[in-house]
Structure formats: structure tokens, C-alpha cells
């Protein structure tokens, strides 16, 4: 289950959601006020290295079985080392596509039975543009 807030990316600025808030009336201070420091910055959790991270839009259905659907927003980090089983943006004939990296058997897999695996050369990392660390979907109004 993934939680999606697309607006965070839209503003590309910090959105602070206070963990705690209370309206303060004159006279009696709220006991919670001392705790109002921590805020959740979703960007901080999703984007570890801003300089190496970009967003991309998924277009197609070959990754649907791992929950990346047509129109989803993908967060791609170029600085993450692509390990076995990582969801990666790979280059096939120079063009970017999203696949699962199977280093052991030197293949790129889709997450859809209709798409067969693709064999890759030894220097697999040369063909990898980045690792998909998150994918986001807008649920409020379904556009498909």
C-alpha cells in the first residue's frame, strides 16, 4: 500500500505538516506547545540526495504487478547502487524504460507476464540511469 501526496512535488518546496497543534488562548499555556518542534517533511523522506534525484512519469503497464501503473510518478535516484532485484530505469536502445534488475541471471524483468525478460550484457550498470526508490499515485480523482 502506498500513500501518495502529489502536491508536495508540485510545489517542490517544503510542506510542513505539524505533528501537534493547539490554538493558544491567553492565560493558560497549552502543555503540548513544548512539543511542537517536529514536522514531517515528505520531501526529506523521499529524496535522500536532491542533486541526484529526478521525477519521471510512467507510461505503460509492464510494471503493474509491482504496483507501478500507467500515469504514476516515479522518484529516481541516480546515486543509489542498483542491487539485485532493484527497480531501475534502464536504457534499452538508448531509451529509458523501467525494469527489475536481475543481476544474477543478467536480465531485465518486467512485472507483467505479457512482457518477456530482456538479456543484458556484462556491464549492466552502464545501462542503468537510476534506481526507482518510490512511486506515487494520485487517488483522490482517478484519471486513467
Amino acid at each position, binding site marked *: 500500500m502506498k500513500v501518495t501526496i*502529489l502536491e508536495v*512535488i*508540485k*510545489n*517542490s*518546496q517544503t510542506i510542513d505538516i505539524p505533528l501537534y497543534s493547539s490554538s493558544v488562548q491567553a492565560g493558560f499555556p497549552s502543555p503540548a506547545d513544548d512539543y511542537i518542534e517536529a514536522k514531517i517533511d515528505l520531501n526529506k523522506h523521499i529524496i535522500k*540526495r*536532491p*542533486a*541526484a534525484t*529526478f*521525477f*519521471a*512519469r*510512467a*507510461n*505503460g*503497464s*509492464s*510494471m503493474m504487478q509491482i504496483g*507501478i501503473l500507467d500515469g504514476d*510518478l*516515479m522518484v529516481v535516484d*541516480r*546515486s543509489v547502487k542498483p542491487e539485485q532485484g532493484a527497480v531501475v*530505469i534502464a*536504457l534499452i*536502445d*538508448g*531509451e*529509458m*524504460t*523501467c525494469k527489475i534488475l536481475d543481476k544474477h541471471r543478467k536480465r531485465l524483468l*518486467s512485472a507483467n507476464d505479457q*512482457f518477456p525478460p530482456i538479456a543484458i550484457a556484462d556491464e549492466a550498470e552502464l545501462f542503468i*540511469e537510476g534506481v526507482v526508490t518510490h512511486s506515487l499515485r494520485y487517488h483522490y480523482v482517478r484519471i486513467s
Partner: protein
Amino acid sequence: MYALVDANSFYASCEQVFRPELRDQPVVVLSNNDGCIVARSRAAKALKIPDLQPYFKIKPFLAKHQVHVFSSNYELYADLSSRVVSVLEEFAPQLEVYSIDESFLCFDGLSVDWRAYGLQIKQRIWRDVRMPVCVGMGQTKTLAKLANHIAKKSAKLKGVCVLHAGNNWDAVFKKLPVETIWGVGRRLAKRLNRLHIYSVYDLKVANAKHIRHQFGVTLERTVAELNGERCVNIDTQPSNKKQIYSTRSFGQKVQQLSDLQQAISQYASTAAVKLRKQNSVVKTIVVFIQTSRFIDDAYSNTITIALPHATNDTRTIIAAAKQGVSRLYRPGLAYAKAGIGLVEIDDATSVQLNFFSQYQSTKSLKLMEVVDKLNCQQKQVFFASSGINPFWRMRRQLKSPSYTTDIQEIPMIKIS
């Protein structure tokens, strides 16, 4: 040790970041209004496409060789430039952003295998940003810049050149013409040639006193820097600009005074934002308009206007600029370009106490603050006199998407 890290054909390389299939292809980028070629990828250079060539002249040649042509995409270039800088910041305690594609790094206090470190920097910027760079290192900024030049020219160095202090580089320096040196332009080089100073080596061993006497203290410093003596320090806090210009060629020729005034209002707003960003105020502006230089009744003229008081209020600057344009305007001409320069600038804090606050009201200061803040949040407040989406705006017909700065334009990845 200093380093200069410089991106290879920066604009062209930016266009290849989100178009991996173009990375080995000929790519060129055009200047404002798609005027001429300002950047060429390596493959484009191999086709012998000359730099700064007017686009319309070379269009058939580009089509024949299937060269990929792009308008300048400043949104993309600025974002990728800042990404490169933030990666570089991890490698050096001090950094100076020298231009959109060049940064100086200062490694004082660090002792490493410099060549290995340089290769690591280069590799990291490729990994994180997909930007190819060259790294030049030396004891001074002048030497670092020179090393960068050598790194760019020599393929076997793999993009990293270190001019170690102990080594003798005279053989290399003898082969490099004197104008390769930072700050030695073509005209200065000609004067040096007359004194039989032709190569980098010639200047390095020149008599410093003699150079100072003939060319001034700046070139004397250059000589010292070539000999490993630091004269130019790293500038981590760029000083405020003494003059701010905003000028543009029009996408289409402009004939009406009202359109010219709209354009100048927009340029004035842009300049005023820059002025406030560096916390300055302006006392004098210049405004100019010009037709194409290549027509019979070519006309160009400039007017200098003293403002009623030092200010950073966009409204005051716009009003003066519009007045200036109407003074310069001659009906019946097709104007190609206009511009505004804020030429006499002062620090706002120094003026504030004596007479500034007296004239520019606190209300106006607050208003400008709010305008800047809203525009910063992309809420787009602008001054009505600038017009909405006017026809004279810059032509960028071949612009690539703003892949990293506009959610509507992020790269689409086919997964089917």
C-alpha cells in the same frame, strides 16, 4: 590546491541528460530568439559546425547531418548547474561558482592523491547528474584554469589534469599560446607578442617588474600565479553587482510605442528583482532601443535618467523607463531590441539611514517584499504594464521540456 571544474559543452550536455539516446549524437543549442549556435556537443564539433554561426545560414547543413537542434532552455540549465554545484560542495570546504558551468574549488587543509581525487569528482558528477566535466588542478586559480584547458585538449588525461607543484611543466607551457591564460585576451596577447611573449612559458619567466610597468598590476599577478604564488583568492561570497542590465532581442520586430513600453516594463521588473535580491537601491538608469543594424534607416539611441531618489521600487523604475522609451521612440521604425541598465547602484543599508527612507516609504518597501515573496512561491504577481504573454517575447521554438522544474514536463518513461 585549487581546482577548476568545468562542464563540457554545458548547454548541449544538459540537453542530453534526459535524452540518453542523444549522448553520442550531434546536438547544438541556439542563443536567444534562436539566433545562432552557442553550444555544440562533441559529435557536433566533429562535424566541424562552427561556433556562433547564425542558425538560418547553417540550417540546411544541420538538417543534412541530422543534427538535433534546441532553443536555450534556461530553466533546465540553471537547475542542472545547481545540482553540479551541490555535488561539488561535498568535495571541497570552499567553493566559488564562477559561471553557470564553472566552479573553483579550494582544498586548503586537504592532502590526498590529487589525480585520483579529480577522477572521483568527475565520476561522481557523471553518476549523480549525468554531466561530463573536466577537472584542472594547480597551486593557484590561474594554474587550475590552465590545467583545465589542458585536460580538455588532451584525450589521454581522461578529463583530469593536475599541475603538481614539484613538477616542471615548462615543456607543456612552451607549447601553449599566451592567450590560453586566464585573463589574457586576444588584444593583450597581441601586445605581448610584440614583446616576444608568445607562449605561457614566455609569460611565466617574464620580468615581473617589467610586466607591471607595461601592463599593470593585474598581469603582474598573473605572472606570479603562473609561478605558483597565490594572488587571486577564492571568492565564496560573490560581491554585489555594480550594474544590472536586462536587455533582450524581440521575438518579432516591434513598431508601437505601447509594445516597446510593455517590453521595457518587463525588463525593468526583472532588473528590479535582481536589485532587491542583493539588497541595493538604484539612483540612475539607462534605457536604450534599437532597430536592426543591417537596415538602411538603422536607429539606435540611449537615454540616461536620474531617478527622483534612490529606490528599489519596481513601480518607480518602470515609470522612469517608460518615460525614457517615449523620449527615444521614433514612429515608423521596426525595433529589434530594447534594454534597461541600472547603472548607479548603492547598498540599501548604507543609504537607508540618511535620505533613502525619507523618500521611499516603508509602505513601498513592504510591498516589494511581498511581491518578491509571492513570485518566489510561483504565485506570479507582475506589474500590469508588462503585459500578459506578449508577442515580442523571446522565441524558443525548439525548447526541450523543463524536465526538472515543471511537474507537467517531467520525463515520460515508456514501460510497455
